[in-house]
């Protein structure tokens, strides 16, 4: 069961093409332990440091009422003690060894990380491995941490009008029986009520080697990383109950909602159902949607903010790497004295122009490609960005090669294709929308 499969990934060609020699001596190593733990190592010797991240395939998209937010709550409890280390000791030990550590939960994953000097690699792996299986659940700790999470929700959502708008957008854009409907942090009512047993069940169900990926980026030796992973995770049993999720996200259309909140500025968000790279049958579609998002974001900023000056902010978003069907979103804050309808009409006009006349975006398209190519190299400056993409792509099930083929995929898209994809997906009659009507803060 502890057989070791080492794969040296053949990424040198695409890297060579993308990064002009500078990365050609840096490879990526992938391995899978006999118990199913995936390992991804990227060597970056610019500084004597590393980041080690452990990614679990579990997040808000796996949750339902009345335990929404349980992945995030469990993430907090992961710092509250194991059979070996008492509550808070994980953070203390990492800190006194010069480490910077934290964790993050999202829709499709929960991840933990330590950034440290390269001499501390074994410590990081050893301690992360310990809490994969040995967490102790204390009611006393849960009682306090539940309050912390409720305060976190108040800070991130309740007291932030625009966060509430996005929370409501997901509620009306995704069916409540499927993924992506509920907020990552959970509904307040659920946070208030889950029991220690709910957390234990979640932990037992999802925290196993065959549901995780260890990603290490930095000045490390890949063989040593794999050996340490084997030493500290290798004895954990494969969990046969973990099956590929049969969940889906069901996108809805044509729903709208008006929120009257204690706020000063109006805010308007639209969503259009769209496939992600994972769910699309034609794998070029998501890249075209991604390109459409860039081109529209740049184009609308130019015409609506800079030239017509009818909007004070514009945002266009698309979640290429979501695990399930996702949304293409458009958001704006109108300029003072301008109605939402005026801005909406201008957006529709510009989208229609893009659809009818692909040449309209030719310049925008080639500049976007130049930017994406440069951004790919700029992103190598942070080991945390590199490990994020590797871990996320592995966890969502897309494969890490997507990180290195991204620029080529984007480069191959033509203006005509962007127009066609806009025509197909940007159907304003079917869009969902949330409108914030500010009531002042008195």
């Amino acid at each position, binding site marked *: 069961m502890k057989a070791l499969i080492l794969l040296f990934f053949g990424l040198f060609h695409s890297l060579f093409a993308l*990064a*002009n020699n*500078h990365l050609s001596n840096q490879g990526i190593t992938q391995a899978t332990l006999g118990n199913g733990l995936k390992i991804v190592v990227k060597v970056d*010797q*610019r*500084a*004597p*440091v590393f980041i080690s991240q452990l990614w679990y395939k579990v997040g808000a998209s796996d949750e339902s009422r009345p335990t929404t937010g349980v992945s995030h709550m469990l993430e907090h409890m992961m*710092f509250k003690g194991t059979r070996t280390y008492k*509550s808070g000791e994980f*953070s*203390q030990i990492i*800190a*006194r*060894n*010069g*480490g*910077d550590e934290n964790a993050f939960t999202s829709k499709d994953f929960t991840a933990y990380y330590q*950034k*440290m*000097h390269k001499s*501390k690699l074994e410590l990081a792996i050893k301690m992360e491995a310990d809490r994969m299986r040995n967490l102790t659940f204390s009611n006393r700790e849960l009682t*306090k*941490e539940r*309050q*912390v999470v409720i*305060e*976190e929700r*108040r*800070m991130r959502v*309740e*007291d*932030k*009008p625009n966060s509430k708008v996005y929370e409501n957008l997901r509620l009306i854009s995704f069916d409540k029986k499927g993924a992506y409907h509920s907020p990552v942090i959970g509904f307040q009512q659920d946070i208030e009520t889950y029991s220690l047993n709910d957390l234990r069940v979640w932990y037992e169900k999802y925290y196993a080697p065959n549901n995780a990926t260890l990603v290490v980026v930095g000045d490390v030796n890949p063989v040593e990383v794999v050996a340490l992973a084997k030493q500290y995770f290798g004895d954990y049993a494969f969990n046969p109950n973990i099956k590929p999720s049969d969940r889906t996200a069901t996108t809805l259309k044509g729903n709208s909602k008006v929120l009257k909140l*204690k*706020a*000063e*500025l109006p805010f308007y968000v639209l969503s259009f159902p769209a496939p992600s790279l994972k769910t699309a049958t034609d794998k070029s579609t998501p890249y075209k949607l991604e390109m459409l998002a860039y081109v529209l974001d*740049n184009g609308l900023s*130019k015409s609506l903010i*800079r030239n017509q*000056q009818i909007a*004070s902010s514009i945002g266009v978003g698309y979640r290429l790497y979501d695990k399930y069907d996702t949304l293409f979103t458009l958001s704006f*804050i109108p*300029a*003072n004295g301008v109605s939402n309808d005026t801005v909406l009409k201008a957006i529709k006009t510009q989208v229609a122009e893009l659809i009818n006349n692909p040449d309209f975006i030719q310049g925008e398209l080639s*500049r*976007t490609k*130049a*930017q994406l190519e*440069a*951004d790919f*190299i*700029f992103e*190598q*400056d*942070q*080991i945390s960005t590199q490990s994020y993409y590797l871990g996320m792509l592995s966890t969502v099930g897309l494969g890490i090669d997507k990180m290195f083929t991204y620029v080529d995929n984007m480069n191959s898209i033509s203006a005509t294709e962007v127009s066609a994809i806009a025509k197909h997906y940007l159907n304003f009659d079917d869009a969902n929308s949330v409108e914030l009507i*500010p009531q002042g*803060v008195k």
Partner: protein
Amino acid sequence: MRFLVLLLLFASSAQAKLDIQHWITPEGAKVFFAQTKGLPILDIALNFDAAASRDGDQFGLASLSSTLLGTATKYHNEEQIINAFEAVGAQFSTSSLKDMSIVSLRTLTRQPILKKSLDTFTEVITQPSFKQKYLTREKRQTLRSIEAGKQSPANIASLAFDKAVFVDHPYAHPKIGTQKSINQISLQDLEQYYQQFYVAKNLTIALVGDISKVKAKQIARQISHGLNVGQKAKANSIVLPLDQPQTIHIEFPSKQTHLLIGQAGINRSHPDYYPLYLGNHIFGGSGLTSILSDEIREKKGLAYSAYSYFTKMQSNGFFMMRMQTKNDQTNEAKNIAIETLKSFRNNTIDTQKLQDGKDNIIGGFALETASNANILTYLSIIGFYDLPLDYLSSFTDKIKDISAEDIQKSYERLIDMDKLIVLSVGAKK
């Protein structure tokens, strides 16, 4: 010394010790350069002493001036400038703080990309043309930002704290200005401001990336040469401690109350800089393991985040403890925070805490310069605040011998428990 030799033996060529080069351009701009290998990119930050503390009574002038850089030059309009940067994938940005306004560029070092992005960058900063239509637009955008700030209790609290701690000092007003002050700023004001403050003698240039020193010299010269020599801005007066305590509550319809407690602080040349730095790291500056977070969050579950920091600005910043909690827990959080600070000020910490704090800073110091972006920030700080060139390489040496008594005495000298500002924004008390 033995330790250093060992490190060098094991280091790969890409990891040569950070070598900071410093020179002054003929026009008088200070330049700080570090060559890094491994990525074909160059980062430049132009740090002008041209920020909110130079607003005079025209609040928001510095911020507007900074925003208008990049909207037009003598030879190109806004769309041409944006397109020129985008076409080579370069990232151009401006930001304006209270001590410095920063104009920055991130570009690939490959030719002809490097030349194109540097030429546009140089033109934008040395040949700007301030146009009324862009000023009018950016004023409207600023007024929108001021409105946006009014729906954020965190922002309201920050602005009110600045006013309370800095009183009538140039640091006291909001850097983006007020509705009234913004409306009064004219194109001539911007032009004058640029002529006076965007000058070589008022500039620190930081460069980091995979270019040679010869190339770095050429780039710094190109930028500096296009600017007026000018005069270095005169130092503002030092922020003084308040002579009495202040309790301020601002009513706001939020579920949480934002609580800010503090007083006037220090700048980077303060004699107690290092013990105060290490002390704050242990007290409230190191996340979940710090004393304040332990008392407020870990032991009581009162807040998601509870931390403290020094702003270390040129003319003295502030020291602040900050947290947010459910409205009806405000008093409890406030009392614990003040008691925790008092105890830290009056008693020496135990040796384990002291050692843990040092070990965290020293053991993790390599992380501080692990990316070009981080190094760029450090070079800017070293240059702008006239820190010694060995600031980074001697940092851990300065930390390692500090005693618990050094920390306690430095807090006793600085923190006056009887004159704290206690500021809250939230539901009616």
